[in-house]
């Protein structure tokens, strides 16, 4: 019988997930109007941009830590 749920290798890459977790948190830094993007103030497009960042980093971590690589 295979070992029950062996700890997957290369888990250190998961520290990268701190980037998208921390990116939307420094509210004081992005609470501003300029620069605007397509007429949208920085405050809004920065936060929506964090969603794209979260997708990119999480995908990267998933690929790097995938077992059997």
């Amino acid at each position, binding site marked *: 019988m*295979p*070992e*029950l*749920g*062996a*700890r*997957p290798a290369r888990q250190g890459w*998961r520290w990268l*997930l701190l980037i*998208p*977790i921390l990116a*939307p*948190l420094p*509210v*004081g830094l992005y*609470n*501003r*109007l300029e620069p*605007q993007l*397509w*007429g*949208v*103030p920085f*405050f*809004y497009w920065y*936060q*929506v941009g*964090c*969603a*794209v960042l*979260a*997708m990119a*980093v*999480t*995908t990267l*971590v*998933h690929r790097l830590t*995938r077992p059997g690589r």
Partner: protein
Amino acid sequence: MTVTARQVEIGVFAALLGAMLVLGFSAARWRRPHSLHSLEEWGVGGRAFGNWVTWFLLGGSMYTAYTYIAVPALVYGVGAAGFFAVPFAIITAPLAYLISTRTWSVSHAHGFVTSAEFTRARFGSRGLAALVAVTGIVATMPYIAVQLIALQAMMKTLGVTGEWPLTVAVILASICTFRSGLRAPALLSIAKDVLLLWLVLAIVLLVAMSGGWSAAFRGAGERFTNDVSPASGLLLPEGGWVGYLTLVLGSALAIFAYPHALTGILAARDRATVQRNAAALPVYCLALGLVAMLGFFAIGQGVRPVGGDLNTVVPQLFHEVFPAWCAGIAYAAVGVAALIPAAVMSIAAANLFTRSIYREYLRPGASPREEARVSRWVSLLAKFGALVFILVLDPQFSIEFQLIGGVIVLQTVPAVVLGLWTAWFHRWALAAGLLGGLGTGLLLLYLVPQRAPDGRILKAHFGGSNLPLSQLGFDSRSAVYTGLVALAVNLIITVAATLLLRALRVPAGPDATHPTDYYADATTTAPRHSDALLDGPTRPRVGAHAAR
């Protein structure tokens, strides 16, 4: 006879909603399980959902109609502060990668369908599990109610008044769930997202044709500068970041304590499905960000809410700016987006009751068939309870209870989230912390007044979830999310009581989980059960699994 725009809207809305319900009915036959007569089949879809279905289901159950209606309404009312839902939704995704994969593995290894069962196994206390289950159920009920309020707000805008349309919608949706279990909302989520995608494209096109975002933000900026409220604006007011940040963090943690979010995760087929979904879920954040900014667009277009009810801003905007048939599609998208989470939430609440109360205290020998039957009836009860709640009481109560729900469900975080990494906490310390956190949370919410834009106090108590620090005697204009303060109190009590109970040598509960359970995967291990009563003998894999 000519057909008015309203009639077209109502016709398209009713036809699409009707088609959705037919789809929900046929869901029982989708991927054809041997039988729906076990809780694992009815309650978590046989743990067989792949990448796509899981993604649609999670999107359908976490991004609710209430979100699509209330977030732009909040942005319409106060501006920047209402946007908190977007960063909150974003950080849940990487957190889910870390937290939910562990939850999935340990639940897969032991056959759990709720987090209360995990607490029972991890800390060896069925009393603590029952406490977690009751907290989850109490927090979920008003959440179901606000979904129905969102549906009602739409019907109100359509000019459909009276109680019967809402009652009919709830009855039909309940029968769907009763029959098909989690498969109904899963299938509906896919159809809903087709409508949602249409809506998103329509919004993009509309904004582009109406002068773009700069016009919308300019109009909104003018209104916020001219209104009397110091709290509203295109940016957060000075000191406003404290309330914003604590609300983001508190709401993000609460997601991992809410029973309905877990139900979708547990229905995933394997660990990689959970991980891929964590990577793909922020796609919904993009849609949410767009819909949230509709609040500004509505201001620019001069939309006025129906009868002063801010929740009608979005439906009213659709009515005023979309062609009638397109508005009908938009209404149907939001309508289905209300019924899906209501279904998942009622399933989650029912599973909590069945596994942690019914089987633990009422009928310890319940068979899988009996469990499924009990859950079906309880899910029906949960939905009708929510319906009666909003028909009999002032809908405002449901909104207040939902705020309270978020604060109280957060108090189960030490047991259900931190417990994934450590069994150090003592079972009684966790119970004491949970109760202490609940007490603190309720007290703080009681202290929050609701203020009119000009600063007058409209209502002395339960006026919101953010407590002004001045209320606690601090010389500050900032506010803080009450749930996070209550969680801090909860953690202090839990740690102090654990140290005390250990010093007194009070025996801790046995931990039935093994460190490797937290990495268990569908391909490496057959489900193992911590307790012979839990699921009976291991069943052969059915449905999608058998086919692969």
